[in-house]
């Protein structure tokens, strides 16, 4: 479904703020797989998602979606294949528009938008059913502005919007990180249900070791813009949060060793 070949991205190249966010990342994702991405701050996990979504073009390498080369496609064009939920619950919805209008916008994801009536009564009753199925009690508030809802409700709706047209690839960028624990649980439950029901190919970034261990069928850990480990199959099924924490600890020590070793060598030879 998604093929990433040797992509590289450097922000602010040639300045003191240079960040090598992605360094020759290779990744193939099969249709229907649910891939979790973890990593420390600045490890490039969100950058990876943004590169796939097309928020920027990569410096090197190729991206393929559904067999089509999309490396030079701008973001809005890639949206034909991609449904997306952002970390910030405010990014995914238009606050001054109503719930129904937001959903209608999502129902046209990647399609040309003409002068057809946006909200016919049949679309509206269809949308009402979809909202009812989420069990948030929002089906009677379809004509309320989305800005009046809580972050959790907005994020649940963004999720519904991203999945409304069954995207070929679903990108979730720490979509529960900004929510309170109860809303986060609810959004995760909805996420799981939707992915299982529609068999969506998913790439999900998370900070939660719990989510990383118990969700998905494959796990990728990123360190300094590279994929440090890739856990699949039965190994992923057995994975526990403690194992992940242990791996993180190992990585941290390795990095620490790098630095102290460098400092020692510097003292001796420079």
């Amino acid at each position, binding site marked *: 479904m998604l093929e990433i070949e040797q992509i590289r991205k450097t922000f602010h190249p040639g300045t003191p703020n240079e960040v090598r966010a992605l360094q020759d990342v290779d990744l193939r994702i099969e249709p229907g797989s649910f891939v979790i991405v973890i990593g420390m701050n600045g490890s490039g996990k969100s950058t990876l998602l943004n590169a796939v979504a097309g928020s920027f073009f990569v410096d090197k390498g190729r991206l393929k979606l559904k067999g089509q080369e999309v490396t030079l496609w701008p973001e809005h064009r890639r949206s034909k294949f991609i449904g997306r939920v952002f970390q910030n619950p405010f990014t995914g919805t*238009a606050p001054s528009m109503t719930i129904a209008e937001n959903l*209608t916008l999502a129902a046209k994801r990647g399609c040309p938008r003409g002068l057809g*009536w946006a909200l016919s009564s049949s679309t509206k009753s269809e949308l009402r059913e979809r909202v009812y199925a989420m069990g948030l009690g929002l089906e009677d508030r379809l004509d309320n502005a989305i800005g009046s809802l809580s972050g959790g409700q907005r994020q649940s709706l963004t999720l519904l919007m991203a999945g409304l047209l069954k995207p070929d690839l679903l990108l979730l960028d720490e979509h529960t990180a900004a929510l309170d624990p109860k809303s986060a649980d609810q959004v995760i439950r909805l996420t799981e249900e939707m992915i299982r029901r529609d068999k969506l190919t998913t790439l999900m970034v998370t900070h939660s070791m719990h989510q990383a261990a118990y969700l998905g069928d494959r796990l990728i850990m990123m360190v300094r813009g590279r994929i440090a480990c890739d856990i699949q199959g039965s190994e992923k099924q057995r994975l526990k949060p403690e194992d992940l924490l242990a791996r993180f600890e190992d990585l941290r020590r390795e990095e620490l060793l790098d630095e102290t070793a460098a400092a020692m060598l510097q003292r001796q030879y420079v």
Partner: protein
Amino acid sequence: MTLLISSITMGLILSLLALGVLISFRILAFRDLTVDGSIALGGAVAATLLSAGWNPWIATLAACLAGAVAGATTGVLATRFSINGLLAGILVMTALHSVNLRVMGKSNLPLMKETTVVTLAQSFASADSRWSFSRWEMPVQDACVAVFVVILISVVAIGMLAFFRTNLGLAMRATGDNDAMIRALGVEVGWMKTFGLALSNALVALSGALLVQYQGFADVQMGIGMVVWGFASVIIGESLIGSKFIGYLLAGAVMGSILFRLLVAIALRWGLNPNDLKLVTAAFVFSALVMPSLMITVKKRFAI
């Protein structure tokens, strides 16, 4: 009575400007200063074509198209060349000043005997027939013009209301509300902004074309400060209506424009020096912009 009717007619004509500004300022969240240039452009194009003997409807339509091109130019400068939106508007506005002089060939163009949409509307009544209400009386022709303008504004406003309920219109509203979201849903934000600015400036130019035909002359200076008038109308409309829903916003802008024009007429009647008008308008818009947040601070102070 004549003064009242003429203020209302003027307010209605300028409400097209307010509707245009509503699209750029509120719906696209784009502070578009092209308006000062495009209202004069609409006037210049209409007046020039009328004095060349064109059909007034076609001349008015041509003015709209010219405005759309001006708006699209600002859009292209702002989105394709990533120039700050305010600056893009200023550039086009400045350039339009020369364009308008070129179009008219001089700085002032009177319409004397030409058939205009206003004279067409007036022709529904004879020149000397009058309506009288107790001690007030007014020419029926003035009423005809007012009715014509009301019909035109209604058509435009209903058209806009319908447009903003289509898929395209919804996408345009989302562009101003949350561009990251709508980009992720497959809309090319730059194109959408350009299209919106074209639409906005077409309305502004239409307003200019009607204004010229109503006043009976086009002047290259007629656009100065018009964008602030537009802001004033939109802001007054919002405080009158107090709702963010699109239908109310449209109605508010029209009402705001009429009310603002009446306020100006009253102020002038009470002896406001016309030279001070722009200063007073600017001060008024300033206070309208600052008041809401100031009121909240004041309320908080007193609540504690």
